[in-house]
């Protein structure tokens, strides 16, 4: 190693290998992804670009470094394949017998209790067994479907319904997967806390909404004005009483003496937070949406789809 150019060459080759691996190849593989209808039942285009105000909010999120305390990535340990019994039918004995004959790991009739549907009949089984069980159950007059349930502490906490995947970030510049959870994950904050006014109050005074919160207040995103007695408050203002608490007509802790008016930055940031939802089932992250979501969309989807439950599991 007494030859300078040789060392330079070594460094050059080593670095180009790493560059090809982690800069060029990902770009070739996923850098040109497009939005697609890869959800099974709804034919929804996913992902959607951020609305204008939410995009401005992304800039506020970047400016104030929210990423240093909040991740936006739900992790998943695995997926449980369950058999969901939505209706036991009229002949419970026949249903149980069909299940025993289907050879899906159920050997004792006492283990099976089909009353109380809708319920999960088989938990965390294999795809083959789940499919066989569903065929057998449907043949015996019950209504059953395969349910895919993502697992993991993040999902158990209600931080998301499935893991976050590359497609979820497609239209974002800058992306904020984050590296630290000083605060909770925000990948699906819009599903958890969909109230924009709550978000504004929380930004103004986090500790007032979440007791003991170590999050700093973002009062510089708001403007405070005194209210003269009898003066009407501005349209989107948060009201404060004399002791500086949020004025709540339900608690009757008034009168309101000042109003907090969110600046455009605060409204944009809240719009961005309320755009944080990634619950669409994708082929790369399959899951069965919770039934509540089914009911709300049932009006414009064919009845048959709603009945069998919308999973994007392989065709039964």
């Amino acid at each position, binding site marked *: 190693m007494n*030859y300078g150019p040789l060392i330079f060459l070594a460094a050059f080759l080593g670095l180009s290998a790493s560059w090809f691996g982690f800069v060029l190849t990902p770009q070739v593989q996923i850098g040109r992804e497009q939005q697609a209808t890869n959800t099974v039942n709804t034919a929804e285009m996913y992902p959607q670009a951020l609305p204008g105000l939410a995009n401005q909010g992304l800039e506020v999120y970047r400016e104030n470094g929210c990423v240093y305390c909040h991740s936006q990535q739900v992790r998943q340990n695995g997926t449980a394949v369950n058999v969901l019994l939505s209706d036991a039918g009229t002949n419970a004995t026949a249903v149980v017998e069909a299940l025993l004959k289907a050879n899906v790991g159920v050997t004792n009739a006492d283990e099976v209790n089909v009353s109380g549907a809708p319920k999960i009949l088989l938990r965390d089984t294999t795809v083959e067994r789940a499919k066989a069980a569903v065929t057998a159950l449907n043949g015996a007059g019950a209504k059953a479907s395969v349910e895919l349930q993502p697992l993991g502490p993040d999902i158990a906490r209600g931080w998301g319904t499935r893991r976050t995947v590359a497609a979820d970030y497609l239209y974002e510049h800058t*992306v904020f997967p984050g590296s630290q959870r000083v605060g909770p994950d925000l990948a699906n904050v819009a599903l958890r806390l969909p109230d924009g006014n709550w978000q504004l109050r929380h930004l103004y005074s*986090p500790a007032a909404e979440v007791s003991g919160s170590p999050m700093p207040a973002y009062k510089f995103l708001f403007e405070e004005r005194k209210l003269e007695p009898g003066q009407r408050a501005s349209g989107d203002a948060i009201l404060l009483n004399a002791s500086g608490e949020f004025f709540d007509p339900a608690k009757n802790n008034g009168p309101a003496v000042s109003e907090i008016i969110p600046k455009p930055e605060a409204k944009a940031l809240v719009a961005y937070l309320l755009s944080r939802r990634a619950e669409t089932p994708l082929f790369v992250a399959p899951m069965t949406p919770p039934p509540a979501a089914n009911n709300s969309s049932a009006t414009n989807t064919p009845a048959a789809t709603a009945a069998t439950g919308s999973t994007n599991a392989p065709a039964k």
Partner: protein
Amino acid sequence: MNANRSTSPLADGNSSISISETDVSCRVPLFVLFVSAAIWLFLASVFGLMASVKFHDPNFLSNTAFLTYGRVHPVATNALLYGFGIQAGLGVALWILARLGNTRVAQPLVIAIGGSLWNLGVLVGIFEIFLGNSTGFEALEMPGYAAVFLFLGYLLIGICAATTLHSRRERRLESPQWFFLAALFWFAWIYSTAMLLLGGTPVRGITQAIVAWWFSANLQNVWLVFVGLAASFYFIPLLMNRKLHSQYLALLTFWTLILFASWSGIPNSAPVPAWIPAVSTVATVLTIITVLAVIVNVYKTVGYGCSQTSNPPSGKFFAFGIAAFVVAWLMNIAAAIPDINSVLHFTWFTTAQWHLNVYGFFSLTMLGAIYYIVPLVTGMEWPFVKWVRAHYWLAAIGTIVLVLPMAIGGVIQGTKLSNPQVSFIETAKGMLPFLKASSVGELFILLGHLLLLINIIALSVRYHKKHFVPVYEAATAELKPSEAKS
């Protein structure tokens, strides 16, 4: 503090230059680089402490936009990485390259201009982060227009460093020289790639995050390690008055860093195609070879003679640096293993590892080098010699008090996060005592940096008085009648 051993007499004695000539040639550029590095280091610890205090009271200085945690924290890390780290690293590299090459440093004035450009870039970048114009990518927050100055400054210094290496009179290349050459080239490539792909015409979606992870790993796991180890491999044998145990082990370190460390840094659960974190994990685990090679090499060099040598204060910095390197890298490797990563990712453990690597290892090594080099280059002893030792203890204790609670707290935080029965707010509150303890470490570190700053400014003032004031007085003194006649 004579460093005769680092240069060997040449066959043709005529072309040889004295060590002091080498040192004098470094005087102007190293003055620019080291004084500004000391100032940035001090500022970094001021803002680091400020960010840490926000965990004692979340509303401490939170009413103004530019002092919010999300701006102060990146200012502290950028001032440490770019203001101090790279700048001091380049200064140390220039001096060692000149010393090992038995030559003068090339184009001292161009280096000084490059250093000024670099500082202008850091200054603009820090201001822009305060104003809210950060890029939002960790370790790369300074925006594009600051990056232009940084890049130009780096190019000027880097070219001069390469020229210094090229114009060496001692043809044999030692391990620190390989490391420095690779590092010089490395930063220019990763920084330009990252800024172009994330700033000007950004790549889409999560590929941005992959590029950012790649950059940050190559800066912190390759560049800093190259420069930090090069300084250790130069100074530790020098202070021990012996040779580095094995050039082959140094070569192994060199190659494993190039081949494995450059692929590290992508978290195991990253929302990207699965092969990327898989490759990254394997590469990170393989850096155990680097760590083992360094341990054996340093141990065999130092041997049992460590306690018997009269160790100058700067030697302690190198010793702590190597120890911190080993621990930081074992932490890094452990945290890359999938089962452990799923617990420790998104926790303070990774922050603790970052501090131990960037501050405990790299920065302390650079501080030791600065304490060693500056008296040689200026030809003057430190004004407060005892403060060097005091700074060492402040920095060493500070690092431990900063890193240890954070790492322990991070493990606890990770286990709580993996248990959905523990509410999140309990987890967040449970972390606060650990963060409060680590603020004490930040305070110790800050005090140490204050000692360095006062020392180096006092030295500059003395240098000014000794070398410039007499010249100025002589030049402006009134002529005596007798002299006027002649």
